[in-house]
């Protein structure tokens, strides 16, 4: 088969997988950051301990995703990041603040600690909002005008809510006692926020982009796609029903199914992501540039592909190993 044809598809796939991994993995730790101010003082260390061993590696998926965009679709990288210049700068500000605050907050002098806690939470929130805005801007094909920006802001709030839900799910799974009970409460609130936002974005996306509308609302595609929204709906209902039960069981000291909220949220993210990918493919800048037009030459791509084919499975392998090492409830984390 013709390499110029399939290599860009493979790389679009790799990039999508990296970004998906990023959204899920950094999503939960950004979510924990957003929830941090809601935790009682004594619980904050446990909240942070639950993400401590992972966040560095989680953010690496963003570097890989953006790196793939840069090396595989340089034309699109220039256009997209040029258009998103300000939200990207704000996201970076957020990521930098929270990344350093993570380490500074335990190492700094006592009077400075609340300040670093605030930086951690604010940075997490800023990064989540900016990423949502970037998504929103991207989906409208960077359309000008108040409506398009309104849509982007909506997407920003939606993504922040979704991250908070992921974060709450993570905490339910990784903690116990009062904090776990509280996290169930947070999950219930974040669930409504996320549900509303996903609904609004789903309705607004085809309105905002006739391009995307044309891809969904034709038969038989529409019927084939129906499982995506229906599946998400089912997961939302499952979460809405199971969270109150989980709270009751938890109060009785029973920890079964503590992983369910997190898993169901990941399911929602997967389905939404699939829907988005379908909406966009095979464009990479919606309505302007397809992945084939934006791709680098096959010679560079095949060199990278060989490396990726060998290394990516290894990365997945040791990532799984790291998660197994820190399996179970997060205790106070220490360097011992």
């Amino acid at each position, binding site marked *: 088969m013709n390499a110029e044809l399939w290599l860009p598809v493979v790389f679009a796939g790799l990039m999508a997988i990296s970004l998906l991994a990023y959204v899920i993995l950094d999503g939960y730790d950004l979510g924990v950051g957003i929830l941090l101010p809601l935790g009682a003082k004594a619980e904050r260390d446990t909240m942070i*301990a639950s993400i*401590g*061993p992972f966040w*560095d*590696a989680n*953010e*690496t998926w*963003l*570097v*890989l995703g*953006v*790196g*793939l965009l*840069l*090396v*595989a679709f*340089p*034309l699109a*990288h*220039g256009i997209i*990041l*040029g258009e998103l*210049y*300000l939200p*990207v*700068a704000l996201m*970076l*500000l957020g*990521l*930098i603040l929270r*990344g*350093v605050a*993570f*380490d*500074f907050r*335990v*190492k*700094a*002098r006592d009077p400075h600690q609340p300040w670093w806690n605030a930086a951690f939470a604010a940075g997490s929130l800023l990064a989540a909002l900016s990423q949502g805005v970037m998504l929103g801007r991207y989906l409208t094909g960077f359309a000008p005008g108040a409506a398009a920006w309104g849509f982007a802001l909506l997407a920003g709030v939606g993504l922040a809510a979704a991250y908070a839900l992921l974060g709450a799910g993570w905490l339910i799974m990784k903690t116990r006692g009062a904090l776990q009970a509280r996290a169930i409460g947070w999950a219930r609130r974040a669930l409504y926020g996320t549900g509303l936002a996903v609904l609004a974005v789903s309705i607004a996306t085809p309105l905002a982009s006739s391009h995307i509308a044309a891809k969904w609302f034709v038969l038989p595609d529409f019927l084939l796609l129906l499982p995506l929204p229906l599946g998400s709906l089912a997961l939302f209902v499952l979460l809405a029903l199971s969270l109150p039960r989980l709270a009751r069981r938890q109060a009785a000291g029973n920890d079964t199914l503590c992983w369910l909220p997190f898993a169901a949220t990941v399911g929602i993210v997967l389905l939404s992501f699939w829907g988005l990918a379908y909406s966009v493919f095979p464009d990479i800048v919606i309505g302007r540039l397809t992945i084939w037009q934006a791709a*680098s*030459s096959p*010679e*560079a791509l095949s*060199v*990278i592909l060989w*490396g*990726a084919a060998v*290394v*990516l499975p290894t*990365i997945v392998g*040791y*990532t799984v190993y*790291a998660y197994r*090492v*820190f399996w179970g409830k997060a205790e*106070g*984390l*220490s*360097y*011992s």
Partner: protein
Amino acid sequence: MEFDPVTLARIQFGANISFHILFPTISIAMGWVLLFFKWRFNATRDEAWMEAYGFWVKVFALTFAVGVVSGITMSFQFGTNWPGYMRTVGNIAGPLLAYEVLTAFFLEATFLGIMLFGRSRVSNRMHTLATFLVAFGTTVSAFWIIALNSWMQTPAGFTMVNGQAHVTSWLEVIFNPSMPYRLIHMLLASGLTVAFLVAGLSAYRWGRGDRGLAVRHSLKTGVYLAALLIPLQILAGDAHGLNTFHHQPAKLAAMEGVWHTERGAPLLLFALPDEASQSNRYQIGIPRLASLIITHQPDGEIRGLNEFAGRHPPVGKVFWSFRAMVAVGVLMLATAWLAAWQLRRGEPAGWTVSLLTAMTFSGWLATLAGWYVTEIGRQPWLVTGVLSTADAASTVPGGMILSTLLMYLALYLVLLASYVSVVFYLARKAGKHDELPLSANLAGEQA
């Protein structure tokens, strides 16, 4: 000031990369120093080595975090600030950057978690392995990025077709003419930066009366490492300069302030290079020494800037950055050997302790100065002879770059001040725990 987007893009990128490089420079060699502490502990079962490990791993975690987040910034700015870069040399830069992420970033970031927080969860052997993998990952990452940077200095192994670089030999691309020199010089720079950091902070604790075994171990490690590496660095720097002479003569002429092709050129100790008159003012030099060092003949010829009219880098910046680097290098030599000599005979003198403390971050100075020589010295090119900086620059409006530039600058200043003060604070706090048993000490350090 006018909002010239190219200038602003350069300042912004320069500010980011200057800030970023400070932290990898520490983490590359610090990983190996931690492995050394761990190995000493495994071999001797002396808890003080583990205490040293416990202290420095905290500094490492902090450093690594700042490096990661400022590195993420870089991955975005490659494209936004220099779109022409990927367009022209993407076939080379793309795979090298991708290999760095794939082979190094994930490895370091993942095993860092185990290295920092996994001691009670994995076997001692696995923990040592994790420490090794983190150190190894940082070094692999340096390998790829230095390969790419060196290729931009001295490109090889490619042909240009329709304005795009195509690889003819990956071996020649990676091991391009300046790569081995730059890799060695940079790894040694990292080693020296860490050696002085470890020695300096330990001296600081020593000076405050905190003279436990762990502090002694760290002090000796830092001082001896510095004393060992600095002569190697000077030799490597000399060889690096010869390489530059052959491959980037305009840069070398700027470093030495040679305006006109000259035999028996003096080594300038002081001068104010003046672009307008194409000459140096207030020049003080040692006759013939520059020719002797560079060509190994007292009357060897050094090509002057006049041969590269319009295509040479700004002279003053390169000239002075080079002198700053060498000056710090000489100071390092004197300090490290003196301190090593005193340590061999007993305890360091009070003023040696102060000197070491003052030089805690001296490696940063030399490293930044060195990178300015290298990068400013490459101008007006982004990739020597292939792509000029102006042609690679972006079309993002100047005002937007300026506002984000100010934001980054403010952020970086705050972070730099916080980093330095927290590192010293950690040193003071560690001293207070000295009487407590080790386990209590570590448990207090929740992260």
